[in-house]
């Protein structure tokens, strides 16, 4: 539930730094869940990787990026905050409704499945409505977390090396995105992806 709450808060807050912090918090919570669920060793390890990579490295990377680029801390969106929240609520409802279908027999933590689905949907919502490049990355990361939670709850986690590979991939994607964000700022002078509409047709 707390994870979902962080998800909601990520939709609801205006400040970018706060967003990143919530993301870190979400990861910590996820890692905790991983520890809690761990019966074998590998989930612990996965939890540690998650904690280090996503809970610490990525947020720090993002925060540093924000600082360096002197981005205004305002989140810009197609939807106002209340509307975003409302949509988010609706999506969570959908997630919970549909989540039942996703909870496969033999899932490790069937209760978490709807949460994971909701998290994924919320991530997609923020990606599709937030204008700033950084917020899109955050949306993607939230989505990724949802996927991780889903993996955790459905299967007690994927095999270890896969888990690490996935996490590394996510990390690499964020780093790449970070580089791109820096370039976007340099070339366009802003981070508004909604204004990048040169390529069309």
């Amino acid at each position: 539930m707390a994870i979902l709450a962080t998800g909601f808060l990520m939709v609801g807050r205006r400040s970018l730094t706060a967003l990143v912090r919530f993301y870190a918090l979400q990861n910590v919570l996820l890692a905790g869940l991983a520890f809690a669920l761990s019966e074998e060793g590998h989930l612990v390890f996965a939890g540690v990787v998650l904690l280090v990579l996503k809970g610490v490295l990525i947020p720090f990377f993002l925060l540093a990026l924000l600082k360096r680029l002197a981005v205004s801390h305002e989140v810009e969106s197609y939807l106002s905050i209340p509307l975003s929240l409302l949509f988010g609520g609706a999506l969570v409802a959908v997630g919970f409704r549909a989540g039942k279908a996703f909870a496969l027999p033999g899932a490790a933590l069937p209760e978490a499945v709807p949460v994971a689905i909701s998290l994924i949907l919320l991530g997609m919502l923020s990606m599709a409505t937030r204008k700033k490049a950084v917020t899109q990355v955050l949306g993607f990361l939230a989505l990724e977390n949802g996927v991780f939670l889903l993996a955790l709850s459905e299967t007690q986690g994927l095999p270890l090396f896969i888990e690490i590979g996935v996490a590394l991939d996510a990390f690499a994607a964020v780093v790449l995105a970070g580089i791109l964000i820096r370039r976007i700022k340099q070339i366009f002078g802003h981070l508004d992806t909604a204004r990048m509409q040169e390529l069309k047709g």
Partner: protein
Amino acid sequence: MDTPLLALALFLILLQSGLALWWPPGRGFPWTFGTAGVLLLAAGLHRWLLEAPGQQLSLSGLYLALLGLLYLALGPYLRDYLSHQDSAQAKLNAATIPLFALSMVAALLVPPGYSLVFAWEAMALLGYLLIAWGEPGAQTGARWFLLSSRLSGAGVLLMVVALSLIERGSASLWPLVFVGALVGFGVKAAIFPLSLWLTRAHPVAPSPISALLSGGMTKLGLYGLLLATTFQTKPPEWMGWTLVLLGLAGAVYAPVRGLAEQDYKAVLAYSSVENLNLMLAGAGALMLTQDLRFLAALVFLQLSHAAYKGLLFLGSAILPAREIGRLGGLWKRAPVTAGLTLFASVAAASLPPLAGFLGEWLLFLSFLGAKGLLALSAGMVALAGVLASVLYLRAFGLTFLGSARSEAVDRGLEAGPGMRLGMSLLATFLMTISLFPAFFLPKGISVPLLPQFALFAGLLVLLTLLVWWLKKLQHRSYGTWDCGYTSLEPVMQPSPLGYSEQVLRLFPFVSLRSVPSVGVLDPLEQAYRLVSALYQNLASAFQRLQSGSIHLYLLLQFLALLVVLAVAL
């Protein structure tokens, strides 16, 4: 017996394509291409006359002979023609024309399966390249050609696929076979509303290509349709009626539209559409009635059309400009070409005693012999016939007779000896088939014919005597009657549109426009334009999906997920 002949012919054609890469363009064509033509003509006639009629083997023979005739004429013709082109283009043409010729023969030799579609599409590809490479203005025509070929290819593909599925036991697909055949072969034979490509593509193609396309390739469409009738004991009625109705409509529309055309080669193209649609109507009636006279009519119409239309297009190479309004008096500059063109024009206007009339006469009689409303088609045939004769009267008369309408004519030159030989070969064939038509019908098809030999020979002898007598009489050269004034200008001769204006008034579906500039209002073209505009609008509306907004893209992705999930749950 004809297999080695065919193999040798194919080998020679292929050889020529290869040789073209080393030899200067045009060299070797009379020997390879011409010989291949003779071989094809012999093998084709052998098949057509001796194999059991109504089967693929004998049918293909007729068309092999027809192609052979054209190749025979093109052999010497290309020798001259290519050596006058600029070298890169000539080289390319010299290598590609044989391949194009090969693909047409291949389409006739293979059974209706994958290889037919293959040859069919290869023909389209090569034809496209030959047209497109011709001149910068040929772009639009080439595109039309390519698009229509694709439509035709799709139809043939559908037919072939349905046929092979039927072989595996799904008999309910028969309608699909005939729809495919109708579209696939109909488009290639320029069936009426889908005929616009021909009149766009043929005028802009180089003259020998136009001759091959108009004389040869379009006939393959008719071959296909006749072939389709052999699949089942009797093809469906709807197909016959569709062909008859569309064919007759096209046979009247095309010459009228041609009368509004100012481009000499476009006029020839419209006349091709008229002839082809008349043949399509005949083929449709053949399906409906199974009357062999229709088949005989088709034989003469097609063989003579190949000869005269080939000749006309080959002759058009000497025109210094394509617009009739800038021509006139070319007879003086190129008497041989003009004479041969006149001969072909008489055949094309379906006037006796040439074989074109024989075909039309058979078509008349077989339509009259048909039961019910089909007999009324004779009126349409008559209308098409008289319009065609006016069409050629105008095209030939304004181009070759009278006095020159612009300085362009001064550049006009007589065709070279090879070109003249090529055209004469076609004229000789036309003469042969007009004199001895019975020879070209196999035993299975015995229909009463006109006393062609007596008629032709009689007319020829009398004409020679009369002209000889007239020539012998005393005569002198003097100015044309000018009402006593002395300033008769070439522009006082009728202009191409002026010539046909009154006739066009009778047919309101094609009208002339004088504002803002002189042009033609053609509902068919307008319909095409409308459809194309609608599709373009749809497409440009669709471009909004690719608006550049990443948020829209993500949303689309999301929606797609939801849709798939909805299917899954």
